[in-house]
């Protein structure tokens, strides 16, 4: 009898312990690791008015009431200079190449930033990258003080968010070329790096919230342009003799359902690429290139790899009882249904949807605030916190400042996305340079000439 009672008591204690194991997360020392999406990269650059409302900054503010959250802030008009929309009809996106950029505002901070997200970072970069000759934003954030992970660990955080892996699949989507191990990170490479990140940050008992990788084939960079021939005067599809829209011609023939034309194909479309015989004004128009098109098979490969990597993320999160922020599901919901707030509709549409910025890849301030609320909801759900949600009102009714700058020769009319814009985007998300630009076949093309960003002014003292 006594033995039975003794065996029950430990079980009860264990049960009580289990019930109290998930005590509220402490965000007193909160550090964020990630990529462009965590850094609040928007419209081609980093700028303080957007960074101050990055999702980590919002999360910290809502959880602690404090506005002291150190980030690598950049003054207007940003680094690189933020893109602007000079015209909607026709679409003219001005990348302001060669114009003066903003300046770092927080370089002298004598410790690592609380937000260590580096634009363009992959999971491996978090654990291994300390600098980059091709991406000056790496130096802006890391300042030669070590990797993202090392710096984050040195802050001895009580809480951390990890949203990484987006750039492990995104290069395949935006380049239109799926190369396993190059534009798509393999699970074999991703998993040990992600495990190292999780283990290091949670080593001293810190709670973690990890974000899953969204389906990058749902972003406007992929979904905006139709796969049909469009009458430039009316904007309507040209119909064939059977009454159905005439498909553009891709590298493997007429585009089929499930194939996508990337925003970067704008240049080729303007030049007549992809027009089928009978519509082509010359003897034969070249087909859209492999880099212009994301085929259904490539989409399936990207989605499969995304699912695989998300399995790694959620598996490690479950093992550690961390909060999972299912941004893959969020992206799917947004793509299918949009977001409605106060009767105002937002969606994943290019330019007018309000969620994605001018590059069709990264988010607007509204988008980042939405991500913050997803993190808050997951943390409250998992750890029993009562962090209030972000009030979306200012992100709806207060627009971005004018980063206009002087219109110059880099303005390209009548294109949805200029070659310069594509190159700048590829640099930001670390697409391999031999895939940057347009042209080529299914095999990797000759390396394209990569334009370097203009040096910041004054020369950053943190460069070594």
């Amino acid at each position, binding site marked *: 009898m006594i033995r039975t009672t003794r065996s029950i008591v430990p079980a009860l204690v264990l049960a009580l312990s289990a019930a109290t194991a998930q005590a509220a997360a402490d965000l007193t020392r909160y550090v964020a690791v990630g990529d462009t999406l965590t850094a609040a990269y928007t419209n081609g650059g980093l700028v303080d008015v957007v960074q101050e409302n990055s999702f980590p900054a919002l999360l910290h503010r809502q959880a602690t009431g404090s506005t002291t959250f150190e980030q690598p802030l950049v003054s207007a008009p940003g680094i690189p200079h933020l893109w602007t*929309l000079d015209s*909607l*009809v026709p679409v003219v996106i001005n990348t302001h190449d060669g114009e003066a950029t903003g300046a770092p505002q927080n370089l002298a901070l004598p410790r690592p930033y609380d937000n260590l997200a580096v634009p363009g970072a992959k999971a491996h970069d978090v654990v291994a990258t300390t600098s980059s000759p091709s991406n000056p934003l790496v130096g802006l954030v890391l300042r030669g003080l070590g990797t993202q992970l090392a710096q984050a660990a040195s802050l001895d955080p009580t809480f951390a968010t990890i949203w990484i892996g987006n750039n492990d699949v995104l290069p395949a989507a935006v380049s239109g070329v799926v190369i396993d191990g190059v534009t798509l990170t393999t699970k074999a490479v991703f998993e040990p790096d992600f495990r190292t990140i999780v283990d290091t940050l949670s080593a001293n008992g810190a709670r973690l919230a990890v974000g899953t990788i969204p389906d990058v084939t749902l972003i406007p960079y992929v979904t905006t342009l139709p796969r049909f021939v469009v009458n430039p005067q009316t904007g309507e599809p040209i119909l064939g003799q059977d009454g159905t829209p005439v498909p553009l011609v891709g590298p493997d023939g007429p585009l089929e359902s499930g194939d996508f034309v990337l925003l970067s194909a704008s240049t080729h479309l303007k030049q007549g690429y992809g027009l089928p015989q009978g519509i082509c004004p010359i003897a034969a128009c070249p087909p859209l290139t492999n880099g212009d098109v994301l085929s259904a098979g490539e989409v399936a490969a990207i989605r499969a790899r995304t699912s695989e990597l998300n399995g790694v993320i959620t598996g490690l999160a479950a093992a550690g009882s961390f909060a999972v922020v299912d941004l893959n599901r969020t992206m799917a919901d947004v793509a299918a249904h949009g*977001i*409605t*707030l*106060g*009767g*105002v509709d*937002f969606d994943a549409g290019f*330019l*007018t*949807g*309000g969620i994605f*910025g001018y590059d069709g890849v990264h988010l*607007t*301030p*509204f988008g980042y605030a939405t991500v913050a*609320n997803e993190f808050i909801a997951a943390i409250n759900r998992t750890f029993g916190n009562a962090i*209030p*949600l*972000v*009030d*979306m*009102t200012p992100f*709806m*009714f*207060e*627009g*971005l*400042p*004018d980063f206009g700058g002087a219109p110059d020769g880099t303005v390209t009319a009548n294109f949805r996305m200029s070659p310069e814009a594509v190159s700048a985007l590829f640099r930001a998300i670390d697409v391999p340079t031999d895939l940057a630009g347009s042209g080529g076949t299914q095999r990797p093309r000759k390396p394209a000439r990569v334009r370097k960003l203009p040096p910041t002014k004054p020369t950053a003292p943190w460069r070594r």
Partner: protein
Amino acid sequence: MKTNRLRSIGAVAILAALAVAAEPARAAGFAIFEQGTKAMGLGGAFTAQADDPAGLYHNVGGLAFQRGTRAELGTTFVFLGDSKFSGAAPFPGAGATGDQTNSVKALLHAYVAQPISPKWSFGLAVNNPFGLATEWDDPDTWSGRFISEFAELRSFDIAGNFGVLATEDLGIGFGVIWRGSDVVLKRRSAAVNPFNFQVVEVAKVRLESDVDWGLGWNVGILHKACKWFQWGLSYRSKIAVDYSGTARLEQVATGDPVFDAIVAATQPFGQDIPIETRIEFPATASLGAAFTLREDLVLETDVNWAGWNSFDELAITAPTEPGLNATIPENWRSVMSYRAGLRYDLSKTSQLRFGAYYDETPQPTASTSPLLPDASRWGYSFGYGHRWTRVSLDLAVLYVDFLKRTVTDSRDGFYGSYENATWLFGATLGF
């Protein structure tokens, strides 16, 4: 004289039909249960008694027991003003508030009951069993204006009924209901300005229907089982009304002429656009039991059912502008209300009445919005009636206390709490 009296009553009934002022829903959903002052004083627990012409609404079976020509003309004043909204994140955020416009609405009701044979009677009823009106102050800055700034649904029923004494204790009634209704909705429309990603107001939208009609029926039984107990059962069918009307969009300048020009080129501003929609008003049923506790004291308890699951969506179609088509999910559920009323005879000619009820809201939280922020409610009533030789007067007051409705799951992305309370005053003259 009798003919003249009937004609004057008929004229009054027609006048009542024309005066169809809308009022915020007093029963759950947009049903209005206060269709007679005597019943109102009893908390609406009148199915088992139905012993005045207003019984034509509560239980047409009571028509069979009417003796002599009787008519009633009455009004219910509704005092609106204590209706507030408090916002919450993510939108419109804590600190955002809203108030509905103070106003007084008047409903009219008119009934005539006329025996046509020793067993048969005919009754004509004109009343407003459904209606809603929500109007928010400061529409230019009201945070819910992109959902609704003004909404009004008006209805009036003209019902012709017959009652028959199946036995001297059992009355059966039945009849046809002809319902006329119209709807006005006003809100603002917004878009994201792609030049700076700012949400800006781009249009005022007004949807207005014609008065359209639907047909239904009702049936009731009233059984005087014994000296101290009688019961009643009534049923009113659902009625579908197909509305046709127009939508009109008026452009609002954003201050950005380039964007305004683009918006103007893509929207049908300044046109009367034909629109169609359909509302299925729910079927209702009531079961009541009345107990004569003493010769001068009667207690009745009722339970009511409203088949609001017929209101599952609101589909608005614009045949000439398919881009304006919209289907708004409502997903209302059928609900119950519970009533009790006590009447006390001060004398043979005067009576005190007391009542209370609880009415469930059929509206799910996700559908709760500035257009109709419904909530479950408690009602408390007091009434008085006096009968002279040829005329009677009934007076009643009703206080409706809505439960605070907090929206944390919203179809429209509009979060916060609604609080409401209303006073109603009724007066009915009987002839």
